[in-house]
C-alpha cells in the first residue's frame, strides 16, 4: 500500500550519478533523472550509452561511483537490507528472462516469494493469479524450456510482479522476441501502467520505446533529451 508521504516522492530520482567501471570506463557521467510515481518511462540510446547501467543502479544491483539514487525517497546508499529492497520494492525483467529451467512456471514465480510474508499457500495462490493475469493458464506446470520466447518473458514479468512491487524495471525485455510477441509484451506493459505500476523500460528499439509515456535518450553516459511520447 502506498503511504500518503510516499506518494509525494518521485518513484525514482537520480542526482548527478556517475558510474566509473574498473579500467576507467565512464558508463554514467553526471546523470539527473526523475521518474514520477505511476509513470511509464523508456530509456533508449545506442549500445554502451549507459542505459542498462542506470537500470542496474536503480535495481540496487550495483552502486554509483558518486551521486545518489533514490527510490520512493529512500537513498539506496542508506538501505541496509538490499535483499528485502530487491524483493519488495522492485520487480526486475531481463532480456534473457533468466528463468530457472529445472522447475515449473508456477515454481519460478513462487521462488521469488520465498522470504516474503506470504504463507506457502498464499505464494501458490498469488503465482496462479499471475499465471492467469499473464494469460499463461494451462502452462503453469510446464518447464520453461517448453514455452515460446514470448511466454517465457511473460513468466519473467509474472515473477517480477510476484511481491507486488510499485516499480517494474525491464532491461531490453523484447530483445529476443518476434514482432507478435513484442506487440503482446507492449500490451502487458500498458496494462501494468494502467494499473498504477511505475515502469522504467530500457530498450534500444525505438518502436518499443514509443510505447512509453516518456522517452529519455542517452548517449555517452549522459541524458541528452527527454520527450513525451504520447
Amino acid at each position, binding site marked *: 500500500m502506498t503511504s500518503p508521504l510516499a506518494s509525494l516522492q518521485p518513484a525514482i530520482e537520480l542526482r548527478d550519478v556517475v558510474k566509473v567501471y574498473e579500467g576507467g570506463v565512464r558508463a554514467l557521467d553526471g546523470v539527473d533523472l526523475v521518474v514520477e510515481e505511476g509513470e511509464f518511462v523508456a530509456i533508449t540510446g545506442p549500445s554502451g550509452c549507459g542505459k542498462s547501467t542506470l537500470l542496474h543502479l536503480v535495481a540496487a544491483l*550495483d552502486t554509483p561511483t558518486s551521486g545518489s539514487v533514490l527510490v520512493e525517497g529512500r537513498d539506496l546508499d542508506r538501505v541496509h537490507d538490499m535483499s528485502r529492497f*530487491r524483493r519488495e520494492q522492485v520487480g526486475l525483467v531481463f532480456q534473457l528472462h533468466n528463468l530457472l*529451467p*529445472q522447475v515449473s512456471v*508456477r515454481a519460478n514465480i513462487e521462488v521469488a516469494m520465498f*522470504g516474503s510474508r506470504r504463507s*506457502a499457500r498464499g*505464494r*501458490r495462490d498469488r503465482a496462479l493469479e499471475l499465471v*492467469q493475469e499473464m494469460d499463461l493458464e494451462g502452462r503453469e506446470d510446464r518447464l520453461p524450456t517448453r514455452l515460446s520466447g514470448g511466454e517465457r518473458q511473460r513468466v519473467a514479468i509474472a515473477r517480477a510482479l510476484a511481491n507486488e512491487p510499485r516499480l517494474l524495471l525491464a532491461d531490453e525485455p523484447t530483445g529476443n522476441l518476434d514482432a507478435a510477441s513484442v506487440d503482446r509484451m507492449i500490451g502487458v506493459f500498458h496494462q501494468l501502467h494502467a494499473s498504477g505500476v511505475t515502469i522504467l523500460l530500457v530498450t534500444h528499439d525505438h518502436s518499443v520505446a514509443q510505447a512509453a509515456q516518456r522517452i529519455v535518450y542517452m548517449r555517452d553516459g549522459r541524458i541528452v533529451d527527454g520527450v513525451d511520447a504520447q
Partner: protein
Amino acid sequence: MRLPGPSGRLAPTVPTACLGPASARCAAGIRGGEPLSFLEFAFWNIWSKKARSLGLVLAIAFAVMTVVTLAVTSSGLEQSAAAIISVGKADFTVAQKGASDLLASTIDQGELTRLRQVHGVGSTVGVLVETEHLSASTPVFIEIGIAPTDLAPFGVTIVAGHPYGATTANQVMVGWRAASTFNLHVGSRFHANGTWNTVTGIFSTGNSFGDSAAMFPLPAVQGYNRVPGLVTMVFVKDAKGVTAATVAHRIDTDLPELTTIRTASQFGRADRDLVYLKAAVTGSTFLAVLIGAVIVGNTMLLSVFERTRELGLLRAIGWTRRRMVGLLLGENMALALLGAIIGVALAFAVTSILEQLPALKGVLHANYTSGAFWRALYTALGMSLIGGLYPATRAALLSPLKALSYE
C-alpha cells in the same frame, strides 16, 4: 488484470486446473497443486543435475562405508577381546600393565602371591589363555588353562560329564558352542593343545566367547606353551565389606606392574593393540572426512560455477545470503543423508565379505553398534558441512550483476 489474446479477445477466465475432475476442488476455492516448499525446490535442483548429485552421493557413500566398516570391525575385535574378561564371575580382572595385547599378558607366581596378600582381595582365579589354529575354518580357537577347583568360582557350569583331573594329561572340557561346532560329546576325542584329548565334560559360562572355548588343566596348557607357573590374568573377588573400586585402587598402587580392569572401557590398560587400533580408526575417520570434504567441496564449487547465473538471479530477485547458504548446504545435506544410507548398506556388504575371507574368518566379527551408525551420520554431515561451507559462502557473496552476466 486480463491480457488480450493474439486475436484481441480476452483469454478464458476459468483456470485450467478447474476443468474436469478438479472442478469440485475449484468450487471449494482450492486451485492448482501443492505449494512449492523450500525443500521441494532444493530437491528439484538436485534432481536436475543427476550425474553431479550421484557423484557426490557416491563419494560420501564410499567415505561412510570406509568409516563404518572400520568402526564395526574394530568394535567386533574390542568386543571379542573384552569378552575374555567377562567370562569369569569376578568383581574385576588383573593383567600385566601395558601388554601389547591381553593374551600377551603374563603374571608369575610371585606376583600372584603378592596380589592375594593385598588387603580386601577375597578369592582369586588365575587362568592361562592361549589361542590355537585348528583348521582353516577355525583359525583362532581359545584354550583356557584353569584348575578344576576354580571352575565353579570362575562361573563355569558343567552341563554334561565331569571336570578333568587337576593334573591329568590329555583331558579337556569343551564349551557347549564348541561341542556343537565340532560335534563333540562326553568321551569324544578332540585334537587341541598339541595332542589328542578325551572330552570329560561340556560346560556353559553364559558367555558366547567362553562357550566357544575349551578348558584344560592349568599345567597342561602351561606345559604345551612352555610358560610354567605363568597365568595370563587373574579374576578377583573382593572380600566382604570392601568395594571393588577400593581394592582395585590398592592393587594399582601396590603392584604397579599389574593393572585392574573393571569395565570394557578400561581394557586398553592391558591391551595396547586395541588402543592403537581405536586410535587408527579415529584417525581414519578424520582422514575419510577430510578427503570426502575435499571431494564434496570440489564438486560443489564446480556446481556453483555451473549455476552462477541461476544463483545470481536468486540474489537479484531478493534472496538473502543466508537463504542462499541454506539452499546450497541443504542440497548438500540431503545428498549426505542419502550417501550415509548407501554407505551403511555398502559397509554391511563389505563386512560380510571380509568375514568370509579365509584369512579373516573367525578373527573378524562385525559388531553393529548404534555408535557406528551415528559415526556414519556424523561423517556424512561433517563432510557435507566442511566441504560445502566455502562454496556456499562464495555463492552467497556473488555479485548478482556479475553472476547474471557470467558466461
